[in-house]
């Protein structure tokens, strides 16, 4: 066992990770693999073949009842009413201040049944918020303890998912989902993900999770499949400028500042945070989340200050050595107008040195 893992929960795949040599660490209340053979190799596998991620720590909440759609619509910023049944919608949930409670994916099964996947670190907070905001208008059920979740990501992922879950999965457009049977268990397979690669995420009851995981490994041998740890999950999402809650977004940042304004549908009708976001949009942003590439060496890390000349203009929210690009990259908030692509900002490496970096148009990594 690894350091500090006592009292942490195991996912249904714990034994599979240990058997595969995963380096287990505590994360959001669970013990999960940070890596197997190494972050760079695992990252490469997802960019060029296919990888499996255990994301069972994520939370699942079901809104059910005749007023389920209207209730969700009032809580989230994106327009779930405009989505057809069978579609998934990425959306923030905001406070009345416009600050982000969490970001999540809403799976619209029907107007009276919406399944939501939330961040592990926020699931208790989210559930309380949902119940409070729903105010008894519909049922709100926490299904987190019933579901495991396996992400299957990479250029070979659609082929692998089709082999294991059926040919009809191959035809799914992005942000869609199907209910399927896997050895008698009801699973949801969705074409969503957190890597920028094709593939999907499979919600599977705990009892069938290990069988599904091992079937995917077996069926994908010739496709180059392998398990991927949390380390590569972070480098993959960072290259796409996908926000990580707690690093890049939180209750003090708004979706407009974070560059996900496309998920805020101010015209859809009333929702929590609308007034504040409308006001922010009218007045214009004072800062925004940018992606940048460090010129030379020096790895940006969460909370390192960002400078233009002698003036601090912001701070780093995420950073790493990009395995795909081979250079250090980061995300951070900078004051307007330093958010314009091409702007040169300096990363203060904890006072050791300042490394020049250039703001770039996201994503940092573009698929070949």
């Amino acid at each position, binding site marked *: 066992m690894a*350091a500090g893992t006592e009292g942490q929960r195991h996912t249904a795949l714990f034994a599979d990770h240990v058997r595969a040599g995963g380096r287990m660490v505590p994360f959001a209340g669970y013990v999960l693999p940070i*890596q197997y053979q*190494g972050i760079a190799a695992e990252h490469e596998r997802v960019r060029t073949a296919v990888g499996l991620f255990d994301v069972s720590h994520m939370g699942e909440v079901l809104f059910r009842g005749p007023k389920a759609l209207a209730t969700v619509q009032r809580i989230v910023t994106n327009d779930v009413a405009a989505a057809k049944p069978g579609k998934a919608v990425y959306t923030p949930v905001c406070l009345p201040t416009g600050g982000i409670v969490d970001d999540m994916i809403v799976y619209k099964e029907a107007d009276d049944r919406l399944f939501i996947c939330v961040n592990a670190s926020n699931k208790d907070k989210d559930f309380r918020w949902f119940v409070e905001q729903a105010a008894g208008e519909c049922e709100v059920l926490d299904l987190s303890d019933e579901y495991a979740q396996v992400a299957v990501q990479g250029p070979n992922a659609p082929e692998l998912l089709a082999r294991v879950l059926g040919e009809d999965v191959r035809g799914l457009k992005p942000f869609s989902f199907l209910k399927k049977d896997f050895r008698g268990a009801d699973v949801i397979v969705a074409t969503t993900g957190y890597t920028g690669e094709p593939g999907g995420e499979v919600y599977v009851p705990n009892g069938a999770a290990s069988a599904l995981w091992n079937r995917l490994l077996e069926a994908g041998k010739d496709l180059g499949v392998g398990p991927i740890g949390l*380390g590569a999950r972070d480098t993959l999402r960072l290259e796409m400028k996908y926000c990580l809650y707690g690093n890049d977004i939180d209750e003090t940042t708004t979706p407009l500042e974070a560059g996900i304004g496309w998920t805020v549908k101010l015209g859809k009708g009333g929702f929590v945070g609308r007034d504040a976001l409308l006001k922010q949009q009218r007045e214009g942003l004072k800062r925004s989340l940018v992606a940048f590439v460090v010129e030379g*060496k020096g790895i940006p890390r969460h909370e390192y200050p960002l400078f233009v000349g002698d003036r601090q203009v912001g701070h780093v929210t995420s950073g790493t*050595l990009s395995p795909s690009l081979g250079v250090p990259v980061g995300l951070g908030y900078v004051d307007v107008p330093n958010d314009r692509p091409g702007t040169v900002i300096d990363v203060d490496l*904890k006072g*050791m040195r300042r490394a020049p970096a250039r703001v770039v148009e996201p994503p940092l990594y573009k698929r070949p």
Partner: protein
Amino acid sequence: MAVPKDYRYTDSHEWVRIEEDNLVTVGITDYAQEKLGDIVSVELPRLGDEVERGERIGMIDSQKASSEVFAPVSGVIAEVNELLNDDPAVINSDPHEEGWIVRIEVEEIEQIDDLMSADDYEELIGRLDEEDAD
């Protein structure tokens, strides 16, 4: 886990080797590099910097995290390992020789008597590993 007998150690996992009467070489231990994982970038101090014992003299970044290197002794930075700028992973492959970080010129070599012996350091990492195993 290699712990060379003729080196001295700190509880922050630096090693020290005496080169001449007033010159010591400093690096991070095999234990430290193993914990950090694949090292991808190193920040080194400037030649001629005066450093106090316990003061930060460098930063080592692995793919996962950033960690600081502290001066085990007070003195002047006499040499930095330029090889690390091009090939930081040499700290992973050879932490006690090729992967050295700086050389420090000291006024009083007696300072190193305050550092841990190899036996003491081995005991320390044994204890840390045991805590990990709980």
